[in-house]
């Protein structure tokens, strides 16, 4: 499945080292795109200015939350669950979210982790 760097729009296949380490352009956020939605995704991201790409990158990193200081491991957002069309414009697929499908995939230690418990800690758990 293709992954697209939000900053420079480059595409990477599953298992590409750039997804684990970060894109050549320095980007650390990738959109995870199913093949049948590829054309749609290309149209979506090609309309973004550099400034907008950076804003989306920052917003999604904030959304993911709980990133420790200095943690710059790449994050992959599953467009099937959440789409960020432009900065501040979100579309949520409730069916996927209610099913408990992961929203983000994190990379770390050279591995690709589906880790929503870690990335979306709930308010109640923070207090523990």
């Amino acid at each position, binding site marked *: 499945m293709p992954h697209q760097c939000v900053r420079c729009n480059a595409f990477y296949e599953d298992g590409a080292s750039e997804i684990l380490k970060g894109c050549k352009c320095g980007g650390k956020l990738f959109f995870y795109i199913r093949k049948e939605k590829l054309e749609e995704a290309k149209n979506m991201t090609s309309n973004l200015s550099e400034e907008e790409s950076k804003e989306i990158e920052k917003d999604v990193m904030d959304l993911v939350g709980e990133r420790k200081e200095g943690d710059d491991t790449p994050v992959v957002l599953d467009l099937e669950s959440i789409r960020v069309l432009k900065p501040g414009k*979100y579309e949520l697929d*409730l069916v996927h*979210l209610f099913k408990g499908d992961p929203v983000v995939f994190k990379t770390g230690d050279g591995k690709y982790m589906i880790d929503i418990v870690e990335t979306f800690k709930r*308010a109640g758990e923070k207090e523990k």
Partner: protein
Amino acid sequence: MIQALRKLLDKFLNSLFKKKKHIKLGLYGPPNAGKTTLANKICTDWLGEEMGNVSDVAHETREIQIKEQISIKAKGKELSFNLVDTPGIATKIDFEEFIKAGMKKKEAKIRAKEATKGVIDAIKWLDDMDVVIVVLDSTEDPFSQVNITIIGNLQARDIPVLIVANKIDLKKSDMKRIESAFPQYKIASISAKFGNNIDNFYEALLDMVN
């Protein structure tokens, strides 16, 4: 699996002792249906203090809010619960809507981001709920993707649901439309803002849980 077993055990013990229960009661629904207004009404009636801020601008509640140990009584029955107010669930969140409501661009974008996170959090909390009150705006069309998805998922998870048709004080309120949309559910029609029919709501809640 362990959680499911624990729930089963809790249900068994509750039915065995039939005394005061202590449950997690969640308020779910689309934005601006009046979830926090109802939470405030419940808290004011039984604790003497409000729970959170309300606003005409959608997505005012963007974080889960919890009020612990609320006890309500009606017709000789009693129920003790932790009330969980959740952010409104939506399929589209657009900062431009907040700008139209008078916000500055930066503030609107932050609200959109927080509201999106709020939707994810609300959905993640659903599994922790013992009972859910789905709050709907009775002036709006009930056949929306948000309403159908929330109620369908609660049914699939076997979580008891009470539907609250709110804002009956408004002229456009249409109870029949809500009743025809969800004929298999108990529906309490209220005005959380003015307290209309609120006693019927408490009785319906106690009937459902006891």
